[in-house]
Structures are given as structure tokens and as C-alpha cells.
């Protein structure tokens, strides 16, 4: 049964060093505030799972908290590269980054299998590509009816899934709408679920296209207005495309990134001597 509580406490209780964490939201509703709280608390050695690592994981990777990345498309959407991701993969800075790399269809089905209590999912994918040669989580199965060979992907079951939603009600039910992505599957696949929300309302008004997660499927809810910025929450904000574009310059350079980190999370460097 979900509890409504401060973000700091929820992150501290639910996310631990070494956890496998999925922070989902397909361009829309990306839980940036929760990721920043992870940086603030220096929770580390994480295996991060996300279809599109996006700027949110670029920041966590650059902060040195990530051991392994499970993903399917690692760019800054509409802008270009994720430079911190590239620097970690290509140069091991600030630490080496292990990859488990898939296609979108494969990742989506890995979450579906996880949410469905199955060890794997079947899809038409990967055939003829080099993707399967680099991961142990793609294999094949043969259809027992037609003899056709299809791709199999291993289920993903994160220790924790974190999502951002527009609303929770007082009973702790969660609701999000617009582009709803793979969040329902990511939440239902996880052992623990943390949801940040734009607001807590007394009761939900009818809302087309809304996905509801009943309170008994969620562990903690934190009210964090704007918690998806620079991503957005339909009905509350619009995507801050300028911020995404500006991130390119910040992330491209290690010094610029480190300065951003120091500026944004001063507490973690409090022991450092001022330059």
C-alpha cells in the first residue's frame, strides 16, 4: 500500500547501492527530480535500465554512480549525442560502463515479460543484426506449431522502478496520461515502486487516456511539482526543448559537466577546497 512521503525519505528507503533501477518515461514524464535525489544521496554502483537513457541517465552516469546500463537508444532526442554516456563507454570516465544493449521492441518486451511473471518474451526481432552477439539476454525459441524460429528476450525485473505521474489521490492511487510509454510495465515488473507526482488530489476527475496504478501496487509517492523537468507532464508543463539543447554544451566537456554538478548539488562537494 503506497505511502505519501518526502522524496528524500522515499529515495533513501527504496533505492540502495548496487540496485537495478528503472526510471522510465518515454520522452514524457521522465522522473528527473528523483534522479537528482539519487545524485544528492550518492547512491552508487547502480545498474540502470531505460529504453532511452536521455539526459536523466547522462547525468547519473557523469556523476559516477552507474556500473551498468541496460538500454535501447542512447541519444539526446532531436539534439545529438549523450556525451557523458559516450565518455563513459569510450573512455571509462568517470568509471567504466558495462552495456546491455537492445532494440526498443526488445526492451519493451523485456518489461512486458517482467510484468507478466514470465522469464522471457517472444518477438520478431534481432534477426540478421549484430545485436544478439553482444548480450546474453537475447536468444531464440522455436514455435512448437509452425517450426519458425523467433527471438526471445529475457525478462527485466528491476529492484526499483521510479516513474513520474501527473496525480495521486489521497488513497495513494496514481494516475498518468498523455504518452504513457512503458511505465505501467516497468512499474509492475519491479520489486519496489516509487512515484513522484505533480500533485496529490482529493479524488480523480474523469480523464481520457489515463493509466491508473492502484495504491497496492506502489510503495511510495512523493509530491514533486515539476519533477519531470526538463521533460514534461502533459496538462502541467511542456517539454523544455531549449534545456535539452543547452545540455549538449554542458555535457560535451568534462569540466563544464563537473561545474554543473558542483553547482547543482553543492552538498556532496562540501569538503572540497574552493578553487
Amino acid at each position, binding site marked *: 500500500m503506497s505511502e505519501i512521503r518526502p522524496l528524500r525519505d522515499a529515495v533513501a528507503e527504496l533505492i540502495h547501492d548496487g540496485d537495478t533501477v528503472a526510471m522510465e518515461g*518515454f*520522452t*514524457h514524464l521522465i522522473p528527473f527530480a528523483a534522479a537528482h535525489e539519487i545524485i544528492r544521496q550518492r547512491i552508487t554502483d547502480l545498474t540502470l535500465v531505460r*529504453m*532511452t537513457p536521455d539526459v536523466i541517465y547522462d547525468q547519473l552516469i557523469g556523476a559516477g554512480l552507474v556500473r551498468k546500463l541496460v*538500454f*535501447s*537508444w*542512447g*541519444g539526446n*532526442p*532531436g*539534439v545529438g*549525442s*549523450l556525451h557523458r*554516456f*559516450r565518455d563513459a*563507454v*569510450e573512455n571509462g570516465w568517470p568509471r567504466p560502463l558495462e552495456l546491455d*544493449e*537492445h*532494440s*526498443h*521492441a526488445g526492451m*519493451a*518486451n523485456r*518489461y*512486458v515479460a517482467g510484468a507478466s511473471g514470465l522469464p522471457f518474451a517472444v*518477438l*520478431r*526481432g*534481432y*534477426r*540478421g*543484426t*549484430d*545485436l544478439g552477439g553482444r548480450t546474453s539476454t537475447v536468444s531464440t525459441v522455436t514455435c512448437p506449431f509452425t517450426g*519458425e*524460429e523467433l527471438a526471445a528476450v529475457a525478462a527485466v525485473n528491476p529492484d526499483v522502478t521510479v516513474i513520474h505521474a501527473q496525480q495521486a489521490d489521497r488513497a495513494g492511487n496514481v494516475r498518468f496520461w*498523455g*504518452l*504513457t*510509454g*512503458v511505465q*505501467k*510495465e516497468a512499474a509492475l515488473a519491479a520489486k519496489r515502486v516509487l512515484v513522484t507526482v505533480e500533485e496529490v488530489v482529493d479524488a480523480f476527475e474523469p480523464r481520457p*487516456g489515463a*493509466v491508473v496504478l492502484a495504491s497496492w501496487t506502489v510503495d511510495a509517492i512523493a509530491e514533486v511539482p515539476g519533477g519531470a523537468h526538463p521533460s*514534461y507532464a*502533459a496538462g502541467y508543463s*511542456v*517539454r523544455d*526543448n531549449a534545456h*535539452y539543447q543547452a545540455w549538449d554544451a554542458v555535457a560535451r566537456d568534462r569540466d563544464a559537466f563537473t561545474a554543473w554538478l558542483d553547482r547543482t548539488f553543492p552538498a556532496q562537494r562540501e569538503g572540497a577546497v574552493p578553487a
Partner: protein
Amino acid sequence: MTTAATAPSDRSAAPAWSSDELMTVNAARALAAARTCFVGIGLPSTAANLARRTANPDLVLIYESGAIGAKPTRLPLSIGDGELADTADAVVSVPEMFNYWLQGGRIDVGFLGAAQLDRFGNINTTIVDRGPDRPEGRLPGAGGAPEIAANCGEVLIVLRHSPRNMVAALDFRTSVGHGDGVGDRARLGLRGRGPVAVITDLGVLRPSATTSELELTELHPGVTVNQVREATGWPLAVAPEVGVTEPPTADELTALRALKAA
């Protein structure tokens, strides 16, 4: 096409269009007969949105973020901009999009970009050899492309023509075009026809019916075969008859520029 002649004849002025505009306009035209198009972000999205404003107003745009029948009024920066959902006929989850809609074989045309392309239309968007220090330079990775390439009725590819992009051997095969040649798609169990056209800023390549190897079939106005050969990283096959694409019409250019300015 009624107004097009005014532009190219005006040789004293600056070029009436850029090579990128040539590429985009021709990519949009390639969608004239499609009912549904699975749209990647960037050049494909620009071309598909231009097609809705010119050659094919009824074209159904499908974005992997879950928007079916999106009708954006301006070019989205990402495949998940809010306007895609707001204007869509239906919004579905990402697993449903990939399983029921793409894998279900419901999409006529998949529209892809590429970092590297080989002579059989295979695509690399994963890693490139950046020299001895960085043999595995990172690109963003696969995204939706492998299954778009496998499951759409046919595939259009749009990219800028250069020896760095059009390579003899991919550093990584992210998405299958025609594999190792004719018959390879069937052998792999891939259901769509694969790439039917590669539209670049220099012209158009199409797979040979007998070998599935891409050959130059059309040049953009003012481009020579030699220019294309030099911009291609493998010995380029050239069709017996090479056509010239129609210059952009004034309507096409106006629509494209309005789209990019919005």
C-alpha cells in the same frame, strides 16, 4: 510542377534550394502512395510531415512514442513531444505500438535514417570505428530501427551522401536492409520488402531486382554521376538509365520552409 521552372533557370541568383531541401522534398514525394508511415525523428520526421502538407494529406503518421495518426502543426523536436499525443487519433503504450502495430504488420512504410549504410541497404547506428584510440565510438544505438526495418511493408532511408556514411563494410549491423544480397530477407524470416529507396542529397539509389545491391537510379538536378561515385564508399553500381528528379516546386519549398520555421 507548374512553377518549378522559374527557380532553376535563375542561375545568376543564389541556389533556389539547398541540397538538404532536395533530399527532404524527394523523401516526402516517396510517401505519395503510402497509407501509414512509421516515423523516426530528424530527417524522416521532416519528410513525413512535409508529405502530409504536399503529396499525401491523408498520410497516417505513427511515432514510436505511441501516437497513431499524429497531426503536428510544427516539427516535433523529439518523438515524444506533447503535440504528437494531443493531435493523434489514438495513443497507445509503447509495448502495444511495437507488438500490435509494428510487428503486427500494419505499417506500410518505415522511414529511417542511418549513420552508416552499406551497398545492400543495411544500417549501422550503434558503433563506428573512430580510429585506433576509439575503435568503438558510440552512436545512440538501435532504437526502433531493427524491427521497423524487419516489419514494415517497405523501408525508405534518407541520409546525406558521403564516403563516411556510405561505406563498404559496416562497423556494426544494427538493422537489416537486404542482408548479404537477394533472397537474404526471406531466409532471415523478415516479412517486409526492406529498403526500396535511399534518398540522399545527391540522388536516389534503389536495390537491383536481380542482386538487391543499391544502384544509382536518379540524380538531383545539377548533380553528376561522378559526384555520387566519389561520395560513395564502395564501387557504385549505376542503373542503365539514370533519371533526374523533378526540382522542388514552389509549393513544396514553401511548405518545407514553413514547417522548419514553425
